[in-house]
């Protein structure tokens, strides 16, 4: 399937999507965070698309917004797509957890939570995975995080 | 010299027996009990009852104690000291023990012991035959009874390991 095919197919599933990089090797889609879980479930269960493999889950700090980037692949058709969900609330960022749809997201969400402070609604155990349990110095991967020990560019 | 060794072993046995019943750590008291049993085996070896000594070691020290240690390790609150028993219970146990000791002593003193002049080593073949014969000097009944003792030990181990449900619901 080409990117255009996927785009056409996906457009029938949901309307509020923004597409970009259609000529690259990977279609990028931006989706609102409220419909994210539904959207991913549809992508997974749709027989023609069957994006069933969560390749990566990346926490993002876009400067103004926070966000999560999901890379999905279909083990049947071998297309990779990128789905971005932006969260505008920096103080209390919340997004739906997708670990029920993709169990692979479980630990990745924990990672995004502790490095970016994104709360995943429905995740049963958002503890510290990489950082020490008593870490309270903020979220290290955010752009506005400053660490006295860290060298400047 | 044998006399000295006998007294040393006896005193050790008594000391360990007292320690075994007075210690409140169940694991330690089991180990002290083990020393007492080994002491008994030692006495058997002293009078050259090798077979009996080895049986003592196998059945009591090697078998029952290992079983008890094994099951005690399964007990939940093993690190807590044992409860001190009630006074009347201690009194009763003391009375029974004293009666038993008295009876034994009476039996020993009333019996007219003869000093053994020749210590004869009993061959293993004779023991084996005696175990399996049910005639005059046969031991097949006691031999079978020992297996019941082992069974009792196993039951005891299970009882210790079993949680007291009644206590829990209270």
């Amino acid at each position: 399937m080409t990117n255009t095919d996927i785009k056409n197919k996906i457009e029938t599933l949901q309307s509020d999507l923004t597409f970009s990089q259609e000529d690259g090797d990977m279609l990028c889609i931006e989706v609102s965070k409220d419909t994210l879980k539904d959207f991913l479930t549809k992508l997974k269960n749709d027989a023609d698309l069957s994006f069933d493999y969560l390749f990566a889950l990346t926490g993002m700090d876009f400067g103004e917004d926070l966000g999560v980037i999901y890379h999905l692949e279909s083990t049947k058709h071998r297309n990779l797509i990128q789905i971005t969900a932006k969260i505008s609330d920096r103080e209390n960022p919340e997004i739906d957890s997708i670990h029920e749809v993709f169990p692979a997201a479980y630990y990745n969400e924990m990672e995004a939570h502790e490095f970016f402070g994104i709360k995943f609604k429905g995740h049963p155990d958002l503890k510290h995975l990489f950082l020490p349990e008593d870490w309270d110095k903020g979220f290290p991967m955010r752009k506005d995080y400053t660490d006295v020990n860290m060298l400047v560019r | 010299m044998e006399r000295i060794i006998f007294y040393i072993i006896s005193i050790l046995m008594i000391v360990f027996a007292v320690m075994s019943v007075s210690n409140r750590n169940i694991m330690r008291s089991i180990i002290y009990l083990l020393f007492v049993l080994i002491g008994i085996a030692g006495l058997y070896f002293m009078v050259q009852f090798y077979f009996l000594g080895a049986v003592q070691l196998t059945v009591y020290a090697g078998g029952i104690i290992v079983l008890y240690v094994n099951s005690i390790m399964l007990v939940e609150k093993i690190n807590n000291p044992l409860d001190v028993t009630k006074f009347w219970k201690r009194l009763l146990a003391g009375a029974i023990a004293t009666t038993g000791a008295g009876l034994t002593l009476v039996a020993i003193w009333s019996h007219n012991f003869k000093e053994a002049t020749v210590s004869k080593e009993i061959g293993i073949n004779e023991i084996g035959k005696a175990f399996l014969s049910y005639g005059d000097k046969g031991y097949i009944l006691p031999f079978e009874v020992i297996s019941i003792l082992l069974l009792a030990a196993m039951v005891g181990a299970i009882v210790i390991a079993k949680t007291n449900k009644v206590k829990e619901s209270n």
Partner: protein
Amino acid sequence: MKEEFLTDQLKTQEYFLNMGPQHPATHGVLRLLLKLDGEILRNVDMDLGFIHRSIEKMCERDTYKQIVHLTDRLDYLSSHINNEAVALLVEKALNIEVNDRIKIIRTIMDELTRISSHVLWWGVMGMDIGALTTFMYGFRERELINDIFEETCGARLTMNYNLIGGLRYDIHENFVKRVKDFVAHFKKKLPEYDKLLTGNIIFRKRLEGIGYISKEDAIAYGLNGPTARGSGVSCDIRKIHPYSAYDMVDFEEAIYTEGDSYARYKVRIKEMWQSLSIIEQLIDKIPEGEYKVKTKAVIKLPAGSFVQRVESARGDFGVFAYSDGQKFPYRFKFRSPGFANLTALNKMSKGLKIADLVAILSTIDVVVPDIDR
């Protein structure tokens, strides 16, 4: 009746066992929190980050040329392949075309790296199951590969041989001969491995049926590499999205469908044979040419997202760059195969015994720096 008696009458107490961070089976500093009932695993949780160096954050302050050399420190056993991922990413984003010589040398080195990693895994696998001798046998062959690396670029483990647009040095004049010698040697030694471990009845009993994960679960948990191929998932990036010279060679993807530890073990053994075959096909075909393409001094990626995936020794290693057009990436993410594989550990090992956990952990083949990044 038996089960009832055991649960009602003989109440057992579940307890926690802290496996790691210093533990021989965790191959580094991985901490597993085991919830045990006797020796039976009820739950396996993990605590990571004991060697987290925040490489992703470091990448945000480094240029793309520098980032190549940071990737060595992820999965140090397939450092060459990791380097290549970043190099390929930038080459793809900037449309830098490299010649066949570079591609073929990269591929040969990739496969040598894979063999060296698998050989080490094989040694450690045996050791985890209790056969200590395998470790020495594995190292015997690994040493030969490391010697080849050393002659080529001066380093034995973290090679930094790949650059954006080519290689750091040309290959040594002995390279072809030594690689051929190694292939001949290893072809004789691989059956020895089978004799020592694969056919051993104890070894097979320890692995067969242990750590089962179905194909559907394997996909859902994002398993990749040999771990997923043991469950019958076709996921070899070399086949699916060929890079470098993998489209020039003919090889078979090692897939077994049993889904247990033994299948994962067999996958890796078969992969070593396939790697040998790939090297054999390519070693005589190295064309003449430049070993490096001239690139700009300051590399700037166009704004946008880029993903490059390679098949490292552990699986699907992915690099994701989010660029805003600067010379530094805005966000750089490494998708580590070990981390994804580890997420399924609880699923695989629940209800089994501690010894099985160790076996499963070594068939997953975790390298902790790769997981912690």
